[in-house]
């Protein structure tokens, strides 16, 4: 195969996905009597002044950080065939308790932040640990228990907020916990913009971005490069083979859920430490569910999830300029759903085309490049995709890039 053709195949999936998503979105926009090209232009319009442009980037990034963490939390569990639909409850409960602890103590800066982070991770891990414990001791499906625990977390958070942890004065319309003192705030990253010679944006870029990056790298290394990660992936690919190889299946469920929950505990912290400084009735909800979409979009790899989170952040920001152009914001939600669907369909189509291509050539192509075609038969999660290490999922003829890898 020529290099050209190979690159073509590698780019096929993302291009196909984008074309399909664009086509459907364009149709939708045309239906309401607006010009799709205007819409596209508007979505990429980051503003006129340099400061508006950097501000737009900050908005996208600040939205992407929690989404990335949410996606990561979901994906860790997915990797071993567990469907942690309970990320939502895990982060809500973690955030309120972390906020309360953060407000209750006074410590020097870094320690204060560290304490809040540790509390959040611990609460998230414990809440997810209940799911794991019920699964290994009582065989309760993690899907049910985490759905139920989401509601229980929500109710508990509400009880705590209106009861023992209420920090706002009685008359206030929004009930919140007490504010975390300034020593517990996470410094912003706007300094970076001046260093790069860019205009200062209006709001702070969350410093928690750095934490997210570190967590992403750690998770990536953990899953791909360590023995533990191997055991985790093996359990996801074939629980029976993993057990026979000496992996303690129950222990693995517990450890994985603890990690997933600990990451989930971080989801609320960018907002909490970087902006809100308290948890209240208006604290952003639903990130756990979006995290599932982001994880799937990113095919459970940290880099993919980062791209998925950025895409969602970008689309989310676009909702405002679209409204200025008289295009309803619901178009963005439609585009998000369409993109998730078309990306996964495009992956599948590209996979088949690649195979057919390989059939004609003489390279040995794998029968599957992962996404969704695996499925360990346990849990409705299907299987997580295999390692995306160099060349692992593609045959010798196609080592440059996975057809699914790039471009989201």
């Amino acid at each position, binding site marked *: 195969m020529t290099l050209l053709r190979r690159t073509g195949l590698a780019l096929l999936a993302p291009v196909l996905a984008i074309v399909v998503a664009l086509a459907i979105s364009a149709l939708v926009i045309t*239906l309401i009597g607006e010009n799709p090209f205007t819409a596209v232009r508007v979505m990429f319009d980051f503003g006129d002044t340099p400061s508006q442009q950097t501000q737009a980037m900050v908005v996208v990034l600040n939205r992407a950080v929690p989404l990335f963490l949410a996606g990561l939390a979901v994906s860790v569990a997915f990797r071993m065939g567990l469907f942690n639909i309970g990320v939502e409850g895990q982060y809500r409960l973690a955030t309120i308790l972390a906020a309360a602890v953060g407000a209750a103590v006074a410590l020097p800066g870094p320690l204060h932040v560290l304490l809040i982070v540790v509390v959040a991770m611990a609460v998230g891990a414990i809440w997810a640990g209940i799911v794991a414990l019920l699964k290994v001791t*009582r065989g309760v499906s993690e899907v049910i228990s985490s759905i139920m625990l989401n509601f229980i977390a929500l109710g508990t958070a509400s009880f705590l907020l*209106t009861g023992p942890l209420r920090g706002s004065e009685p008359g206030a319309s929004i009930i919140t916990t007490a504010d975390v003192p300034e020593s517990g705030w996470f410094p912003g990253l706007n300094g970076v913009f001046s260093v790069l010679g860019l205009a200062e944006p209006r709001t702070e870029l969350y410093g928690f971005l750095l934490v997210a990056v570190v967590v992403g790298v750690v998770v990536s290394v953990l899953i791909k490069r360590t023995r533990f990660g191997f055991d985790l992936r093996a359990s996801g690919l074939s629980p029976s083979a993993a057990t026979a190889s000496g992996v303690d299946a129950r222990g693995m469920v517990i450890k994985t859920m603890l990690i997933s929950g600990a990451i989930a505990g971080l989801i609320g912290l960018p907002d909490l430490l970087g902006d809100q400084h308290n948890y209240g009735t208006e604290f952003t909800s639903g990130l756990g569910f979006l995290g599932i979409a982001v994880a799937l979009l990113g095919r459970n790899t940290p880099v993919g999830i980062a791209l998925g989170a950025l895409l969602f952040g970008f689309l989310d920001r676009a909702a405002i300029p679209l409204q200025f152009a008289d295009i309803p914001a619901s178009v963005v939600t439609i585009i998000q759903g369409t993109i998730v669907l078309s990306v996964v369909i495009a992956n599948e189509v590209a996979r088949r085309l690649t195979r057919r291509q390989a059939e004609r050539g003489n390279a040995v192509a794998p029968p599957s490049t992962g996404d969704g075609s695996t499925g360990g038969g346990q849990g409705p999660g299907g299987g997580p995709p295999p390692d995306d290490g160099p060349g692992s999922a593609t045959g010798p003829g196609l080592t440059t890039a996975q057809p699914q890898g790039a471009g989201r």
Partner: protein
Amino acid sequence: MSTATTTPAPSRGALTDRLLGRNPQRRVLYLLLGLVVLFSAVRVISGEQALTSSSTFSAALLLAVPLALVALGGLFSERAGVVNIGLEGMMILGTWGAGWAGYQWGWTGALIGGAVFGAAGGLVHAIATVTFGVDHVVSGVAINILAEGVVRFLSELLYTDNAAGGGVTQSPPLSSRPPSFSLPVLSSGPDLLGDLEGKHWFLLSDVAGLLRGLTNGVGVLTVLAVLLIPASYLVLWRTAFGLRLRSCGENPAAADSLGVPVYRLKYIAVIISGALAGLGGVFLVFIATIYREGQTGGRGFIGLAALIFGNWRPGGLAAGAGLFGFADALQLRSATAVVALLLLIAVLLAAVAVWQALRGKRTQAVLAAVFAAAALVAFLTVDELPEGIVSFTPHLTTLLVLSLASQRLRMPKADGLVYRRGEH
């Protein structure tokens, strides 16, 4: 002949297996009787009439039916091997379809509209999972996101400046109401059951409450849903079509090798699944008489949980939906009745403790006894629970029952696996 061991009867679901062993009918009766007596006793002791009032039971029915419909939807799809996380999205589409068709063509229109919109969601899921082999969870999640956008968009498109009313978040009202039925004499007119219930007698009034709750002012879709449960059983387990459909969820390669049209059946199953989830949405629209954005409130997920709770069986999922619906009704009716529930739990746990002790399982017995004592203390000391805590009564109940009952759940063997001909 090689070893053919005598095998126990197939599992009948977590709860029943644990509580009843393997001899159904009669034991189910005993169980129900026992529960009624227990509830009755708890009602008399605590004075919480809401515990067994017909009002609570009819609310429970209202809350259980949409869950049961969604879970039935899940049953069809998952029995055919397609995991359906997109039920919530299909339910959302169903509510919109019902609202849209309902304001124009009345309740029958709503019924059809909701089913068709739900089925459309199912069709998308089928195209993605069956034809394109997309991971089932991925597709389901995408459908949930997509559905939210689509209904908002359609509302914007069709209800802005609509003379009939409506807006971006709601439809105009149904132009006709679905009929509802009551048992003559017993629960309407002279309302003998109602009289009996009002007497607050031990046991008799409770049974009357139960019966009246289930027979008074029952909507047409409730009747349909209740019929759909045995009907689904008959279709799936007693017809050739059902056998073929289930074979796609157990071993599609085997089915394919016998000329069963696996893809087509999966399509049909997932579309039926969507239609049933859509009907669950229609039910909500019937209660409200309009479509309202956010009306489903996560019921699609709870329905999915009911399906798993019920071990992928019609009877089991109905029990799951019923349990959830009852607990939910109780918590919506009265926060104090929820406290009375603690007494019930204490009694049940005490029974479990005794039973486990008899079986020589000491840790379990002690554990159950401790929790029983805790529940009793809570009952005696707490007057009313805060709203936040009360709100998750049904979820906690479901989780407790699940973790106390032994888990012999068995999902269809090929559920969630992408099937591609020749690539198994």
